């Protein structure tokens, strides 16, 4: 018995030694390319962002240490505050409008699963893969005055009140025009994500609900929705972090205008850094974006842990 105990462990030891030969250099060699990329394009720039944010720095190359001056100035800067306000408004309305819409579509698609489900899912996701320049172009075209889709159709129908609305030039409407296009472009992701989650709900639950005479809506409300608690919270965090990084659509459609009506944090950073060539301020905006998204990501992870806790 002792012999049979010794033999395999000795064999395993020999095997492990064979496996370990050249292990360390191999591991280093395989990790090297990834770390080279990150060191040059991420670690170094991250450190630089924090440093530049503490300096008065222009495109001409002069740099002077100013402490937290840039941050202090940001919080009295009208454009930055507008960006901050829009980003949070954007996140709020995405969660309130896009997620319920996505849930309705995802639930109906999975509940009434038939031959159309697959193709419909692919169609709903299609607009998510379009380049944002194309999405912005379509948005401009839908809302443009005179030749725009809404204007020309309304004029054709004789609805003067609608035909003369300036969706892009009006400060109160511009945000909503961009938001509408974003809803068209980005709701596909929560739809496919929720569908994947709903499909994981055991079929027995649904059969039991149907035997109890529960209607589709009651099944959705009492069984499916509670089960989606965690994925919905994840999506809410993704919406928020996505809003913090928002740049392409409002910039290509309206360059943040009219005035500051569609400015986001990303656009503020771009304007400070690459239009006014004020690197210090732009880097400070970058740090703010980083800290906010870090905050939300940590929130996401602690949500994940509380979920593990619930299960245990």
């Amino acid at each position, binding site marked *: 018995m002792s012999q049979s105990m010794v033999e395999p462990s000795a064999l395993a030891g020999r095997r492990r030694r*064979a496996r370990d030969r050249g292990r360390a250099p*191999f*591991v280093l060699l*395989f*990790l090297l*390319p*990834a770390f080279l*990329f*990150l060191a040059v*394009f*991420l670690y*170094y*720039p*991250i450190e*630089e*962002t924090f440093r*530049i944010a503490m300096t008065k720095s222009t495109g001409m190359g002069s740099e002077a240490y100013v402490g937290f001056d840039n941050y202090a100035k940001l919080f009295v800067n009208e454009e930055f505050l507008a960006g901050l306000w829009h980003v949070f408004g954007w996140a709020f309305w995405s969660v309130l409008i896009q997620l319920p819409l996505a849930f309705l579509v995802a639930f*109906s698609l999975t509940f*009434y699963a*038939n031959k*159309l489900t697959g193709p*419909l899912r*692919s*169609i709903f*996701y*299609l*607009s998510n*893969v379009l*380049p*944002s320049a*194309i999405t*912005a172009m*379509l948005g*401009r*075209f*839908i809302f*443009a005055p005179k*030749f725009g*889709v809404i204007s*020309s159709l309304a004029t054709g129908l004789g609805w003067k009140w609608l035909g003369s609305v300036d969706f892009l030039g009006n400060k109160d409407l511009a945000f909503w025009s961009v938001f509408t296009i974003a809803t*068209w472009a980005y709701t596909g992701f929560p739809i*496919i*994500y929720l569908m*994947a989650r709903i499909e994981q709900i055991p079929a027995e639950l649904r059969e039991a609900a*149907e035997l109890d005479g529960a209607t*589709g809506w009651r099944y959705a409300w009492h069984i499916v929705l509670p089960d989606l608690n965690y994925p919905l919270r994840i999506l809410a965090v993704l919406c928020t972090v996505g809003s*913090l990084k928002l*740049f*392409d659509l409002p910039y*290509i459609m309206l360059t943040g205008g009219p005035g500051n009506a569609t400015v986001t944090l990303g656009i503020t*950073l*771009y304007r400070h850094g*690459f239009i006014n060539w004020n*690197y210090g301020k*732009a880097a400070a905006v*970058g*740090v703010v*974006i*980083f800290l906010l998204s*870090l905050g939300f990501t940590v929130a996401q992870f602690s949500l994940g842990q509380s979920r593990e806790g619930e299960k245990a």
Partner: protein
Amino acid sequence: MSQLRIRHGAAEVLATVLLVALAILVILPLLMPLMFVFKTQLEFSYHPWAWPKQIRWTNFAEAWKAVKIDQGLLNTAIVSLGAIAATLPPSALAGYIFAKYRSRATELAFYAIMVGYFVPSLMVLIPLYKMEVATRLNDTLYGLFLPMAAFGIPFWTLIYRSFFQTLPADLAEAARIDGAGHAGTFFRIMLPLAKPATILALLLVFIGAWSDYLLSLILLSSQEHFTMQLRVASFLNAYGTDRMPKYASAAVISAAPTILLYILGHKWIIRGTLAGAIKE
């Protein structure tokens, strides 16, 4: 089951009709430009919504010249292929180590790479730009796809890692006993088995690089290096929607590769997107 079906009858029909209507609404904006690309500017001004009377290709030809679409497509293709070539190998190598050579040191390295996953690329734009100007990397196509790859590597390392984790350890063990070295095992046995992950990465990195706007806007400055997306956006800003027929033609050409790729690979693209999202 069939009984249940019948009971749903009316509701199912209604829901399906609503969903199909919504799908048409989603797809309609994409079809709209096709109404304009065959019209002259004059026809468009008078009857923007009338059915085109005749199929003309002149708008495409003119847009091709005005926007220099060939140059744009070539630049975008170089950037996309470059991004693939620079993203996939480092990610696959690192993902393999994190899956199959786990130790305290590699765990630490893994967290160091994941830092990149949580840092928004917006944050590092200023130093990135300064660095590229200092090293004259700015306004070159490789100066664009290299940082693009760097921003993608953390995510794809994560995907490769979880894919390699699903491959049984016995396989590598057997190869090792047959005398294959560490690298031999990876290149001859493990990497070919990771083909699904590689296909996902190929598709999604390509689409991401093809669609990029912000990095290109900041890093490229001369017209001849402009990618398709920059050209479409600057055309929009120069002419607004007034030159719609020409503009729509440029947009159709610029969107076509993504849409074609989606039609061919939508199942893979959706699967890959979900695989990434559920990992988070």
